């Protein structure tokens, strides 16, 4: 027996065991999520028809895609999810690099990072509402200290067209998450590679760009993707802190789904499926990007 096959069987055995161990959980996830998605798809396609004369087929999707609000809502949702992800990722990168030495020495930083992870988005959203709204803490403090003329002169940060409070919530919430993921990788690579780079006279910038970044890129990408997918599909934060109009896609889906007119329910489901589709597309794109970059690294 040549070593290659024996190594192959040696590897397949744990795979089978892994499947056996993961099987029950995987089955449940596939059943609940896959089944839910499938049922949703059926309803969005109008099966079974709610009443005579309701549309079936792709009618609901066409209606949503053809709605004048759709590009606006999609743009707003992409803006919120994209901006918060990019800002959170950049800040986390800086934070992780700054903290890595400290994190290697003590576990305190891990503990500190875990605290915000346990706080629900909803709590942060409400807190920001209390702090940032025109009658909130900050504006009262500002007017008491004479920084702004009156509470009404305080800049609009909640329910504003730029979604400042929404972005703040997501960024505040996601920085610890991404930092946590990055620290785990950074701690494991140690300082040897960077030291080798230094002996080869690589500058700080070169060491960062050619050693550190390629190593943490997969984790950074994966963490950002999770954050993006969450922010793209989450409902509660834009519902509380966003404007009445335009709506983000998840809020629009909720409004259609809970409309008095039960016939607009399939539209709500269609919007939700479009959200799911967009997120899947993002995952696919990210996979492709990572793959091609890895191949380039390998080919070098």
């Amino acid at each position, binding site marked *: 027996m040549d070593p290659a096959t024996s190594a192959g069987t040696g590897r397949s055995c744990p795979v089978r065991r892994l499947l056996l161990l993961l099987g029950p959980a995987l089955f449940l996830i596939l059943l609940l999520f896959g089944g839910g998605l499938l049922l949703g798809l059926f309803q969005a396609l109008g099966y079974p028809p709610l009443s005579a004369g309701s549309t079936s087929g792709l009618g609901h999707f066409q209606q949503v895609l053809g709605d004048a609000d759709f590009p606006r809502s999609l743009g707003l949702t992409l803006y919120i999810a994209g901006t918060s992800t990019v800002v959170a990722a950049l800040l986390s990168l800086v934070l992780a690099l700054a903290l890595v030495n400290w994190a290697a020495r003590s576990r305190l930083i891990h503990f500190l990072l875990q605290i915000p992870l346990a706080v629900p988005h909803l709590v942060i959203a409400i807190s920001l509402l209390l702090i940032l709204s025109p009658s909130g803490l900050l504006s009262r403090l500002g007017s008491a200290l004479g920084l702004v003329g009156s509470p009404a002169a305080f800049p609009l940060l909640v329910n504003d067209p730029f979604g400042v409070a929404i972005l703040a919530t997501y960024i505040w919430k996601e920085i610890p998450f991404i930092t946590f993921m990055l620290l785990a990788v950074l701690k494991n690579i140690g300082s040897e590679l960077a030291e080798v780079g230094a002996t080869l006279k690589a500058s700080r910038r070169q060491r960062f760009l050619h050693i550190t970044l390629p190593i943490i890129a997969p984790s950074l990408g994966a963490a950002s993707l999770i954050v993006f997918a969450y922010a793209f599909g989450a409902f509660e934060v834009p519902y509380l802190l966003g*404007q*009445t109009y335009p709506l983000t896609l998840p809020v629009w889906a909720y409004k259609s789904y*809970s*409309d008095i007119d039960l016939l607009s*329910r399939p539209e709500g489901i269609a919007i939700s499926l479009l959200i799911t589709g967009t997120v899947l597309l993002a995952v696919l794109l990210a996979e492709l990007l990572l793959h091609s970059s890895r191949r380039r690294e390998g080919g070098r």
Partner: protein
Amino acid sequence: MAQSTPRRIRRRFAHRFQAALSCWLLLLFLLPCRPADSGEPPDWQETLTAARGQTVDWYMWGGSPAVNSFVNGYLAREVQSRFGITLRQVPVKDIAEVMSKLLVEKQAGKMRGGSADLLWINGENFRTGKSHGLLYGPFAERLPNQRYVDWRKPTVASDFGTPVEGLESPWGSAQMVMIYDSARTPQPPRTVAELLDWIGANPGRFAYPAPPDFTGSAFVRQIFYHASGEVELWQGEYRPAELEAAAGATYTILRDLKPFLWRGGSTYPESPVRMNSLFADGEIDFSFSYHQGDASRYILDGLFPPTVRTFIFAEGTISNTHFVAIPFNAQDQAGAMVVANFLLSPEAQLEKARPEVWGDFPAIDPGRLPPEWQQRFADLPRGPATLADEVLQAGQLPEPPSTILVHLEKGWQQQVLKQR
């Protein structure tokens, strides 16, 4: 086998006989304890028996602390001690969410074992539920306490233009009132027209929740009555063109109002809870509530300053009756009916009407009660901000049919919010 000798059988029989006898004796003792005037139909006894030990999940709007503490406190305690029923409040933002769920369950063929047993339902959702067969019943006429209800009253016989037909049971009634702070606004406007002028003269100091929020939608209907100059017309036969014209005039008024609203109309409070906190924070000068007793409640809770008062428009404000319904697939139907019946009892109605509890209008007609109960209702103290019953009742306008309500909500989205 060998033990089943005739003697043993006889002894066992004797035991059973004794047990049955003592049961009957116990019943004889208990019977006189029951109120003599209950006059309950025989099948009601069966309902009471079936209801014992059940857990009733009451899905209801959970946005009012007063209602929540009434339901979870007094009501839960009483139905537990009187009927052995565990009452669980399930707060929702909008009962339409539950109607969606029921529709899915109906499609999926889940005809029993549903999680919701009792619903606090509003007119438009009642119409949806009735037309899709999502409600159990008719059950209202089987409730013994419905004899206190005046079913001839139009606001009880039909819910937003949809005939009730025993599919829901009333439990209270409410009227829209405007809320203001007499310290800030000593002379509030007294008609809708005056209010509109006031908003124009004081930009940024008024807001209303965005429909389809229940309270915001009620405000739009109030403007609709003002714009059309009609109330009775919408109760009967009207031509589609008349509705279009009146709705168009309503949207024009609200569009013109937009630049003068809070934040220039760029955004709206998402709920009356938010509007009330804007009012309490001094960002806006008026709030309003589809409940005459809310403002007093909020003063007692310390959320509003004691100078807050309410008023109704000279032309009147809209009012309605609130109802409970039972879903078609409720697991604990008997328990739900017992709770619905207890809600109509003089005790529960009086407790609910006390200003420090909720200050809700009774759903029963106190004139049908024994004199001592009539006196208790007459002796109820009023909250500091609640108007007198005579003032309120003199200005009650009926709700338009729910078709008009839905029409206005959709139209508002398109013509006022999005300005198409």
